[in-house]
């Protein structure tokens, strides 16, 4: 219902890498690159990594930096923990999304799967992390970097276009995502650097969340 609420969600779900000058790839080469990425990830449908993020949002005068760790499992499960002075935990099992603020003992709860812009945001996130069927939602171009590759994703459908202007993914030569960069239609800009990528198995409980006792739970989007 409230599309504008999701504008910032895009900045939450889309983790960007900065773009470097790249030698353009022909469309068949882009397809081949995507096939290689999928083939490599086929054996391990999960990933975890550390991240460093810098957000430039119109609400704030200065960019906000944060660090933490992210876990992802196909097709749509993820967990994101921000450490430091403003810790938070974001967990989705594909059906619902929790954002927990331990410092405030409060949590936000969102339902997914209602064709809402929130789902579009989550779809954008999963696109970055697993690149499955990504051609259905984005026009994709690519380039060869000195030590890897760059993919430029331009949203195809209007719901994604409302959240995302450009979305670049940079991978190293081992096809691991190193950096994503996202620019939103309102000018917000988010750059995320990933490190220590691992494809070790992840405990299913990682993608589950139960608010600790005494947590103030809100549902900002209502039912």
């Amino acid at each position, binding site marked *: 219902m409230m599309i504008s609420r999701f504008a910032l969600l895009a900045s939450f779900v889309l983790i960007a890498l900065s773009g470097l000058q790249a030698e353009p790839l022909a469309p068949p080469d882009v397809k081949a690159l995507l096939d290689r990425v999928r083939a490599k990830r086929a054996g391990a449908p999960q990933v975890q990594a550390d991240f460093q993020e810098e957000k430039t949002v119109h*609400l704030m005068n200065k960019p906000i930096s944060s660090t933490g760790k992210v876990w992802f499992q196909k097709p749509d499960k993820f967990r994101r923990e921000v450490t430091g002075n403003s810790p938070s935990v974001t967990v989705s099992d594909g059906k619902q999304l929790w954002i927990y603020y331990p410092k405030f003992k409060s949590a936000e709860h969102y339902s997914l799967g209602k064709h809402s812009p929130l789902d579009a945001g989550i779809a954008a996130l999963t696109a970055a992390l697993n690149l499955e069927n990504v051609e259905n939602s984005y026009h994709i171009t690519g380039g060869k970097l000195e030590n890897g590759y760059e993919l430029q994703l331009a949203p195809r459908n209007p719901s994604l276009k409302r959240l995302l202007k450009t979305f670049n993914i940079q991978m190293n030569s081992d096809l691991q995502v190193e950096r994503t960069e996202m620019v939103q239609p309102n000018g917000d800009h988010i750059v995320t650097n990933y490190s220590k990528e691992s494809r070790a198995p992840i405990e299913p409980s990682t993608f589950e969340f139960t608010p600790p006792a005494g947590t103030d739970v809100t549902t900002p989007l209502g039912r």
Partner: protein
Amino acid sequence: MSYSKFIARLVTQHRARVWIGVFLIAGVSLYILITRLTLDTEVLNLLPAKFESVQGLKVYNNDFAQTRELTFALSCQPNDVDRLEEFAPIFAQRLREQPWSTRVLAGSPMESPEAIKDLQGLAVPLLLNLEPQAFSDTLAILQPEKLQARLARLHHEIEAGSPRPEFELQLDPLGVVAPALKPFSGNAALEQDQPLTSADRTMRVFLAVTNQPSISAFDCQALMKKVNAFRAGASAGWEGAGPLEVLVTGRSAYVAEISLSMRHDITVTLLGSIFLVGGVFFVGFRRWLPLVGMGFSLLLCCLVALAAGLLIFHELNMVTIGMCAILIGLGVDFAILIFGRYQQARNEGAEHAPAIEAAVAKLGRAIFFGALTTAVGFMALLLANSGGFTQLGVLIAIGILVAALFMTSVFFLFTREHSRPPRNDWILAVVRLYVRRTLRTPGLILWIALPILVILFALALLPQLPLIFDASTRSMEPKSSAAGYALAKIMGKMPTRWEPVLAVVRAPNEEQLHEYWQKIENRWRSLEKTGAIKSFSTPAALALSPRRMAANRQRLRTIDFDAARRALEEAIAREGFSRESFAAGFTLLDQLEAVARGTMPVPDWRKALPPSSSWWFLVDRYFAADPLLTVGFVTTNKPVETHDQKEMLMRELPVDGVPMTLSGWSFTLTDLIPWSHRQLILISTLMAFFDGFLLALLYRDWRLWLIQIATLALAIGAMIATMKLAHIPLNLLNVLAFRLVLAIGVDYGIYVLLVWQRAREIEHDVAGVLKPVLLAGLTAIAGFGSLGLANNPTLSGLGIACAIGLAWSLFATIFFTLPAAAIAEPMSIEARKLLAGT
């Protein structure tokens, strides 16, 4: 001088005077029609006014803005959903640009920055209307430490990537708007109650309020002409692989369609009636002039009845269109009978005037009684307590009595002295043959006809074979209705929820309105908790209390606005927020301070909302043009279908001391269906008793009386059985068919049995009346059957039901009444001849 002689002399020797009289009557009637004609197009006026639910429905239909709302829908193929999403804003913009469009709702108002700004405009009055405790809690947010804590939290949430801060700061930078809107937001979830996108995303719905000057049929037609022109070009630029369907529905769409289909119905049924009735008449009598005379006399009857109706009721309901058709169906009988008898007399050598005298003398009494039974039968519609049906009953009663008069007088102006009937009358020959056979072996005819009628009668009584009663709104839509198709398609694609129960509340002033809705909210909330109802929504949040607002305004003066401003500035700086993001918050602080000091009045929320604001869609849902007339909605656990459900709601929903009218179409139907069943039984029974009494008076012979009653019962039984077997449903209008069939069917019996009773040359006399009865029956069947061509299903349903009933009445009269009378009163032909002295 006898009446028959007087008429004969008048129409043969004083034709000019009669013509002058006719023109005078026609002129006066036309003058009344032209100068006083006012049409009542309100469909709901056909329903009984005694039910509160009907009154509520009328208020809701007439006074609330939804009457000027059109629902548009774009429907595409599943592989074009993304295209549809891209095209929807283009379509919405085109819709907004139409000169007939006041405002458009194309998505949740919360998606639009303008609508969010509009919502901020409601903040001050809604804040001041909060309950004392909620008001205190909300004002506490303005304390410096709370302002700082809130901004720290928002900063934290932005870091976490929550979507909430963006929305919260966009709508409510200060943090007081959301609590102020909380009572309102419960009702603002438009998207959840009325989704604007189908689950499969192949349909998008747009609501548009139009600026049509009134909801009259002509204004609706004019509007829909423009709307359809817009629709024709609205999909320009669509780039989907499949076609894009642009649908529209709504009250104006229906009214335009129904009123236009009425024009079609009038033309088609009139032409159909003229063709069929004229055809039967000509086949029967092979004369054109009397046919013209019949049409002229019937037209005159309609004119007189309509003029009389206007004088009595001052306006005419649209159902009177049906009156003309019914009147023609009834009046034709008189013309055929009287002309049949006249021709018979001429065939037997009588001159023009004596033949007229003979016809009037022989059949005047039967026609008079026929007209009387019909008139009284229709006057029984007064018991229905429905404005429309009362008019219908009175108009037909007047019309039929006038028809009896004109057919035994004016009609003869169209017969000629020199015009001799054809010598070779094959119909009469066949009828005579049948009458002769019946008189000789009545038992044989009876043993063939009676089992058929009895079996059908048994089927009619058989509860296992139900008679369908369709009281849905669909049963009243024109056939192949575009608006109906659009509605059905939208309902098919969208999650269908059943229609809520409406609670219409009118208050004498704002304070009272506020109190009423507070009480209702409390009551309904407890019902929701106990599970008695599923959910509800009310205008309580916008029914403001002037008293409470004045008290809260006093308390607002205790706020240190300067300190709040300073604290906000400091918190913004500390957390690194952009000051621009809080501009609306500073404005609100200024407004609150001005209101507290009295330098600014409390803003009127109605004036705060611009006319194009999407929020009006929500406001108009609850408030009529008169802001003290409001409606609340209750969603029940199951669709309201039974009288028990209605009784429960009538018991539970009202609140002591709050005048409330419960309504809604489904709710009203729980009143109307038993009512129409009662009407069917009560009025038909009363009519049957009256007919029975009149027939007893007329025949003074219990055997003939019994035969006539049995004929009526068997004919009605066969009619019901046929409708059951053919799955022809009854609806709210065609239940009238039963009393029509009774009224007309009884006449056939009267004509035959009165002649039977008084016949001297039985074969000659009975054949002489049976031929006109046959022709009258066939013309009536053709006339009513032609109504089946109407687009309006109520009208076509009425026509078909009547045609079936009359067909069985005619069958029963010919194949049951006559042989039964021959068995019951077996006077030999010789005895009759002896009686006749021939």
